[in-house]
């Protein structure tokens, strides 16, 4: 490391402190200091320092006795191994859901859980229009890309290494989930029991040994994964009265999620709170979410009201990310897959995750829509190709195109910014068990009745919100006049206006007829997704437009 590198690291630490981060006493080696928060595990020997962290905290100190590859796999941690002479490794987690950004410099690697601290201290920043095309198409950049060409997010088992000679490499260690393949001989009852017990064991330390006593906060929607975790929290807690299950509206046009969640909470005798967003605060929620995920994903802006309440409510949060893709069997190839060509299947796996683009012509200029579609396909192709012949091809492709880049920032960064956040369904053990079950045992949610019964028999047969949904007749907050005017204003008054379709460019949201045009498109999932992406781009340009080279979003057209 050079003096300039040290100065940059100090500036990054100052930015973190300005956001309220407090450091534990420094760990020192000759020529090296490590500042960590109280949720990281640290181990120091005479000539080396090791650290590990994840959104859940409460790490076993013995974890750092192992090689980083084993620690990342066992506890889904990111971490650092470094030596007094300057060599070292910064690594990602086995699930890839723990968020860590790196910037590789000459003979150094800068890393941060917050992209802002890297961006604001970087010498140069270049907008990555491929990443922005992927945000529009998929909801987040793929393959570790970020909105800056210079900064990378570590994917599962990726690491950045500084060697003894000062050379810097960014590489991926073997990802063990690639080794898990369906086993015809798998015993469903035994795998079910083991899966539930593994999740319970993972949650248990967060229910008994936290500073918050037995208090904990399972997130509870109207679906199956969250009720399974709520039931396990109630089962494992020494004092279930200290649990609070939290529900919010995902702004999907129905209140069934909240109502069904209330039924589940009552069945499990768990306290339940419903927190939804106020219409006046729509813009604030959208901007706060964008900031919390460093402008890298556009999905879960509606989380912010419940996140603010959780900041005031001690206790670990339990989140069921990964359940749908690993346990639910819903991200699978179509029934006629056997008759399709390899290339056709790869394309269909990509298109299933970028389905929003079928409405692109309504939101984006013709040339932009085509270029975004081309970029989406080319950006996702290496991932689809890598797993094209894998027995869990669609599952792994979906996981890497959607769950890791787009969904994970919500629990890891947004909920994780409120309280320690545990994600039991993306542990290596659960993934191993789930990926070894034959597809037919999971298809269309076939495994859930077994899992739910094993978690708590009272959940057997309880319908989900999706089971009950007929039509979605509620006004979505995002499609209200207030929401539409806010988003239309963001997009139309910034550089992203140049990407809009003729219809949206002409629709003045200040007029009654104009705002209805925006409202109708926001009321449809696909066009709404694209408008959210453009609004996120507008906020990012507000924040970084003067710091990046060539901030003109029309560059997206040049695929």
């Amino acid at each position: 490391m050079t003096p300039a590198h040290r100065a940059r690291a100090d500036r990054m630490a100052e930015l973190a402190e300005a956001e309220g981060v407090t450091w534990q006493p420094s760990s020192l080696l000759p020529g090296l200091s490590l500042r960590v928060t109280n949720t990281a595990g640290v181990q120091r020997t005479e000539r080396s320092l090791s650290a590990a962290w994840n959104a859940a905290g409460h790490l076993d100190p013995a974890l750092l006795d192992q090689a980083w590859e084993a620690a990342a796999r066992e506890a889904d941690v990111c971490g650092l191994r470094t030596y007094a002479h300057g060599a070292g490794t910064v690594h990602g987690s086995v699930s890839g859901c723990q968020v860590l950004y790196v910037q590789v410099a000459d003979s150094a690697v800068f890393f941060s859980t917050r992209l802002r601290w890297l961006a604001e201290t970087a010498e140069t920043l270049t907008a990555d229009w491929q990443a922005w095309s992927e945000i529009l198409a998929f909801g987040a950049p793929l393959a570790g890309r970020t909105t800056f060409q210079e900064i990378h997010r570590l994917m599962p088992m990726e690491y950045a290494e500084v060697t003894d000679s000062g050379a810097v490499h960014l590489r991926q260690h073997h990802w063990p989930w690639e080794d898990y393949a369906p086993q015809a001989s798998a015993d469903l009852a035994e795998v079910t029991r083991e899966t539930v017990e593994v999740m319970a064991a993972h949650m248990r330390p967060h229910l008994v040994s936290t500073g918050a006593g037995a208090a904990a906060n399972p997130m509870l929607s109207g679906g199956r994964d969250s009720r399974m975790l709520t039931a396990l929290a109630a089962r494992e807690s020494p004092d279930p009265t200290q649990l609070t299950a939290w529900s919010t509206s995902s702004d999907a046009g129905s209140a069934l999620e909240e109502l069904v969640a209330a039924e589940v909470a009552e069945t499990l005798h768990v306290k339940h709170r419903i927190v939804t967003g106020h219409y006046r605060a729509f813009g604030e929620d959208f901007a706060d979410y964008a900031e919390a995920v460093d402008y890298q994903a556009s999905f879960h802006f509606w989380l912010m009201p419940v996140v603010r309440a959780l900041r005031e409510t001690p206790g670990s949060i339990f989140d069921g990310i990964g359940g749908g893709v690993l346990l639910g069997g819903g991200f699978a190839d179509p029934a006629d897959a056997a008759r399709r060509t390899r290339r056709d299947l790869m394309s269909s796996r990509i298109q299933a995750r970028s389905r929003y683009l079928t409405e692109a012509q309504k939101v984006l200029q013709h040339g932009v829509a085509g270029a975004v579609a081309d970029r989406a396909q080319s950006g996702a192709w290496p991932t689809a190709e890598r797993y094209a012949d894998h027995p869990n091809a669609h599952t792994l492709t979906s996981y890497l195109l959607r769950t890791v880049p787009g969904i994970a920032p919500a629990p890891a960064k947004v909920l994780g910014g409120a309280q320690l956040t545990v994600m039991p369904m993306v542990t290596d053990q659960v993934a191993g068990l789930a990926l070894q079950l034959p597809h037919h045992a999971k298809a269309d949610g076939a495994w859930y009745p077994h899992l739910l019964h094993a978690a708590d028999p009272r959940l057997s047969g309880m319908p989900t919100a999706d089971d009950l949904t007929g039509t979605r007749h509620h006004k979505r907050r995002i499609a209200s006049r207030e929401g539409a005017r806010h988003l239309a204003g963001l997009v139309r008054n910034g550089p992203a206006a140049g990407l809009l379709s003729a219809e949206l460019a002409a629709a003045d949201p200040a007029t009654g007829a104009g705002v209805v045009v925006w409202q109708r498109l926001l009321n449809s999932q696909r066009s709404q997704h694209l408008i959210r992406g453009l609004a996120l781009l507008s906020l990012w340009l507000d924040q970084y437009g003067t710091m990046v080279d060539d901030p003109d979003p029309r560059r997206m057209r040049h695929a």
Partner: protein
Amino acid sequence: MPDKPVDTTWVGTRVLPAARRLKRAGRQLGRRARSAVAPRLGSLGAVPLNVTTIGLTAAGSGSGQVGRCGVVVLSVPKDPQIPAQWRKILIEAEQHSVPTVLIVDSVQDLEHPLAAVVTHLMTPEPTMLQTLRDFAGAERTAVLDPLAGKREQTHALFALTRVHTPVEPNA
């Protein structure tokens, strides 16, 4: 974190949504016609209306009553949670796309979980309207004149809940 698989087939992306839209439109048309001829209002709790309503928790109020209502009107109960019997009726209303209107008297009423799950909110107090709009937006909220006759109150309830995305007057 919700991460649901979505049907990406042609049937799932085109036919089923179109069928759902048709079904919703059909229900709305049916409700509009019925409400013009013989409006039926369901209620949960002691609602301060001059209109006669069908008490949906009353003994003998069987299953199926909710689907025949044009609107279900609610007041905030004493229980800080949504009563179990009300919850089942609200789920039924959701399934049949029946609008649900909470009558709000005070800011505290907005903290009740019912305020988070109904489709619309009305207040008898004009000075509360801006608070309601901040909470649920202009399209989901209105004043309900407590002194109006039953015809006017019925009209006000149906006017608020009839159109999903009305064109804003005087914008």
